[in-house]
């Protein structure tokens, strides 16, 4: 089975956006397994990877049900190529070092938490149930990445420098989560998708507060031209999918 993915259904596109975000970030965090700075952080990052893979499955399963046969959570994850992936570009950025991983995580969590808070009130019952389940995990992610941003930002001179460099580097990707794609706007008007305009102040406030406490300078906002939500990605995603999809591509159609 090789699915050429063409569904334009906004609900499907939206589920894929939410699923792809967490799957790709989970995939990145999974790369840390066995290589963390201490055993405790190794466990935490692997645990977040596990949470994210679990969350992605809930969204993919829903999308697959909407699409019907022969779609499944696995066909959606493993048989779509780069242009059919809707994740924001932030999550595909490489781990590099613990500083970049933490900043990436905080930029994601500081959006994800407030996003899920609202998604719980979605007019779509299934999405609202997934949000209610996920937000418990995400509340902890946000606490962890906030605390580590502060600890490393306000730690040693060296850690401060690394964190500031990571923030400067990733800042350009910080706003995409707040810019709605066309399919998102359509669902916002139907009360299904989260109205991003409503959460943007909370997200900005949280980021400002944590960066301040971390003694990190928040760079000026940069207009963002990327559009991962519409399948336009950085060079990283192709390599991520190469690994992620290797088995299903090399041995198509088998049960594992």
């Amino acid at each position, binding site marked *: 089975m090789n699915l050429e993915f063409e569904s334009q259904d906004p609900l499907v596109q939206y589920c894929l956006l939410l699923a792809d975000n967490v799957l790709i970030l989970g995939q990145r965090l999974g790369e840390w*397994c*066995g*290589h963390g700075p201490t055993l405790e952080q190794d466990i935490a990052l692997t645990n977040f990877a596990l949470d994210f893979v679990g969350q992605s499955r809930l969204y993919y399963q829903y999308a697959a049900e909407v699409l019907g046969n022969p779609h499944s959570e696995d066909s959606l994850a493993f048989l779509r190529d780069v242009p059919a992936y809707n994740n924001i570009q932030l999550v595909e950025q490489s781990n590099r070092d613990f500083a970049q991983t933490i900043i990436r995580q905080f930029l994601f969590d500081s959006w994800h938490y407030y996003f899920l808070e609202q998604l719980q009130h979605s007019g779509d019952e299934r999405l609202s149930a997934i949000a209610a389940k996920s937000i418990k995990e995400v509340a902890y992610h946000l606490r962890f990445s906030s605390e580590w941003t502060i600890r490393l930002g306000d730690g040693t001179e060296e850690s401060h420098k690394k964190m500031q460099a990571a923030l400067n580097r990733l800042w350009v990707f910080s706003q995409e989560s707040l810019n709605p794609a066309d399919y998102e706007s359509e669902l916002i008007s139907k009360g299904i998708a989260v109205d991003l305009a409503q959460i943007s102040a909370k997200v900005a406030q949280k980021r400002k507060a944590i960066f301040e406490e971390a003694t990190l300078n928040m760079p000026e906002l940069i207009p963002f031209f990327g559009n991962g939500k519409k399948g336009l990605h950085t060079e990283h995603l192709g390599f991520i999918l190469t690994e992620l999809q290797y088995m299903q591509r090399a041995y198509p159609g088998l049960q594992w």
Partner: protein
Amino acid sequence: MRTTHLEDNFQQKIDAEERIEPKDWMPETYRKTLIRQISQHAHSEIVGMLPEGNWITRAPTLRRKAALLAKVQDEAGHGLYLYCAAETLGVSRDTLLDELHTGKAKYSSIFNYPTIAWADMGAIGWLVDGAAIMNQVPLCRASYGPYARAMVRICKEESFHQRQGFEIMLTLSKGTPTQKAMAQDALNRWWWPSLMMFGPNDAESQHTEQSVRWKIKRFTNDELRQKFVDATVPQAEILGITIPDPDLKWNEERGHYDFGAINWDEFWQVVKGNGPCNQERMEARIKAHEDGEWVREAAMAYANKQSQKLTEQVA
């Protein structure tokens, strides 16, 4: 009390199946033996994360990816409790990690073999965790309390991993001929190293006799190896794959399976550092530790600043 008297008391306690606790008197060699064994076990858990972690990004389905992540995370958790159990004997985790990184401490040699195929996730769960359980279940009754208690929890999780590994193998063996060949290939590569996990034959084993007397060990290497073979052969039959040992056959008289000679030259070479992945595994652990140094320093510096602030507030 004279030392001999203390030693007699200690041995009496052990003979009476009482647990030795961290603050109890214990012979220095008992302490050292335990530190060696517990830390070796802890190191095995964290080095063991690497060969399986190798397949997290390539697991064939989302369900398998989640299960593998959970499994490797359990191993990290086991490492953590075991380091804590070792710390109750008066040695720090930093010291133990130094010993690992400098090659002074050993870890299970099985993890110096490469995981080159997805089927290896099945074979490791089924055979390596299966062998580990044989070794570890008796340790739940080990004489040293903190170790025994850590092992109770570890064994529960390991037996879940073993079933999970067997289930991966079962899925492959019920699959296409290609998948069945993958399962067979993994068994071919992991069978003999799994038998080596029980350590040298009893006649060659340096540590067994004293450890049995102290009830750190309950069975000898050869007894455990035999138990493992006896338990595993029927499982391979269910899978319909062949154990790569032409000498393997049921011995009616002994009531056990006979099996072929283990290549001990290979075992000792891998122990000495000449296995296929020894260098990579150590490099990965050392790199993680060195790359993490600035993180650990920063966390410490931040904690110090916070406690200083607190002191100033109180003053």
